[in-house]
């Protein structure tokens, strides 16, 4: 693996030749003013990222990195940053030392290994790290493209309905119990009489009062549901009587056989039926 074979010149024409040497190793980026260099360096996530950039930029095989060239380029950036008094993370300097070390080891004959296998390439660890980092770098880009809640889609939901403020449930049983409790107390206290009226009568009483809301007059017949059977008619009639008895209703008839009008018992009786 000759360093020459992997010289960036292979893949990139030299910008110029100085004393016969190709001048491709100094990237154009280096000639930008220091504040631009700062921006440039900030785009890298660290030395590995910068190294990958240099390698990919020159289309070099990661598995056979031209160490001398790579080290030279890398150091050029670090030096440019240093002379521009840019703050450079310590990791960059550490990497510089590592590159120089690898480069020098490349120049030495490799010691044969005990198991007679291929001698260890001094670049192995660096390559491993570069590839691992590149894999993660790409994975991060892919992850960023993965549909993400709040950006690419939203959770869909409905408001909890009015009833959803967890209203207490009431079962018939609860009502019965409550009523029994009242009855029980009433018996205990003795001084209470529970008048018994058919419940259906009570229902009609409420219904009739609703019909007569807002001081409305109705003809007596109108109080009876047209679909009612005999039993219901009787119950309805009882309700009218009960309402009259409780002074909740006013029943009036101008003359015998004239229409009977029903009205709620209210003080403002100035309105007359037609």
């Amino acid at each position, binding site marked *: 693996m000759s360093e020459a074979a992997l010289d960036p010149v292979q893949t990139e024409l030299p910008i110029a030749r100085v004393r016969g040497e190709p001048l491709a190793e100094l990237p154009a980026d280096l000639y930008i003013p220091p504040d631009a260099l700062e921006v440039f360096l900030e785009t890298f996530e660290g030395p590995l990222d910068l190294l990958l950039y240099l390698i990919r930029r020159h289309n070099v095989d990661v598995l056979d990195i031209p160490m001398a060239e790579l080290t030279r380029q890398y150091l050029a950036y670090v030096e440019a940053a240093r002379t521009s008094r840019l703050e450079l993370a310590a990791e960059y300097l550490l990497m510089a030392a590592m590159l120089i070390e690898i480069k020098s080891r490349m120049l030495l004959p490799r010691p044969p290994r005990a198991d007679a296998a291929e001698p260890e390439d001094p670049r192995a660890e660096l390559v491993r790290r570069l590839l691992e980092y590149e894999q993660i770098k790409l994975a991060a880009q892919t992850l960023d493209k993965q549909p993400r809640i709040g950006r690419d889609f939203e959770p869909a939901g*409905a408001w909890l309905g009015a009833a959803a403020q967890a*209203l*207490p449930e009431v079962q018939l049983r609860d009502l019965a119990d409550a009523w*029994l*409790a*009242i009855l029980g107390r009433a018996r205990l206290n003795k001084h209470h009489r529970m008048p018994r009226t058919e419940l259906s009568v009570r229902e009609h009483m*409420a219904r009739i009062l609703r019909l007569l809301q807002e001081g409305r007059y109705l003809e007596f017949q109108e109080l009876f549901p047209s679909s009612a059977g005999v039993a219901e008619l009787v119950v309805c009639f009882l309700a009218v009587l009960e309402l009259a008895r409780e002074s909740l209703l006013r029943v009036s008839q101008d003359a015998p056989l004239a229409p009977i009008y029903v009205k709620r018992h209210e*003080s403002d009786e100035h309105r007359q039926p037609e």
Partner: protein
Amino acid sequence: MNPTNIDNLSELKTVLEAGLLAADGPQTLKDLARMFEQELSADMLRRALEELRGDWEGRGVELVQVADGWRFQTRAQMQPYLARLKNERPPRYSRAVLETLAIVAYRQPVTRGDIEDIRGVSVNAQIIKTLEDRGWVETIGHKEVPGRPALLATTKKFLSDLNLRNLAELPPLEDLGNMLAPDTAATPGAADEDPEGGIGAAGSEDPALPASAPAAAGAGGQG
């Protein structure tokens, strides 16, 4: 072709539906119009929303218009399921609320005075308000006596919420009377584990009263 331009009503409804389901709260027509690049008249939006509302009929969620806009919300009928999903024990009404409700149900129409007479204690206005807010009790008139007290009755909603067709389907009083052993009233009730609990607890003004509900195992809202 603009991605936020709309060509037809069905597309409009699709976007409105997604927008309303993704939104955090009610959205006004103005909010909703913002989704589209082109100008959509309020009329157009309203028509689409009305259609959408129709599309959701019969589902467990409905599109409703509330004071500050439109939103999807779960229907009341879903509540028992949702309560179990959220794993909340449903709150319970206080004894005062339940007794008041029972009196209104069985003795309607009644005034607050009637309720106080029957219960033997004064009735906190909050108790009646709790029942009115629930839509179970309403004022259907006023009794022509001094002070013209409101006459209270149960509503249709009360019947339907308790799965009744009419009041006659309430447990009959006679049976209840028979079930009441003479000495039950003195027995400390088992069903009274949380006399103060529940929403209407404001009205539990009778903590001193002996709990008199007969055994009635597991009365009410199980978890």
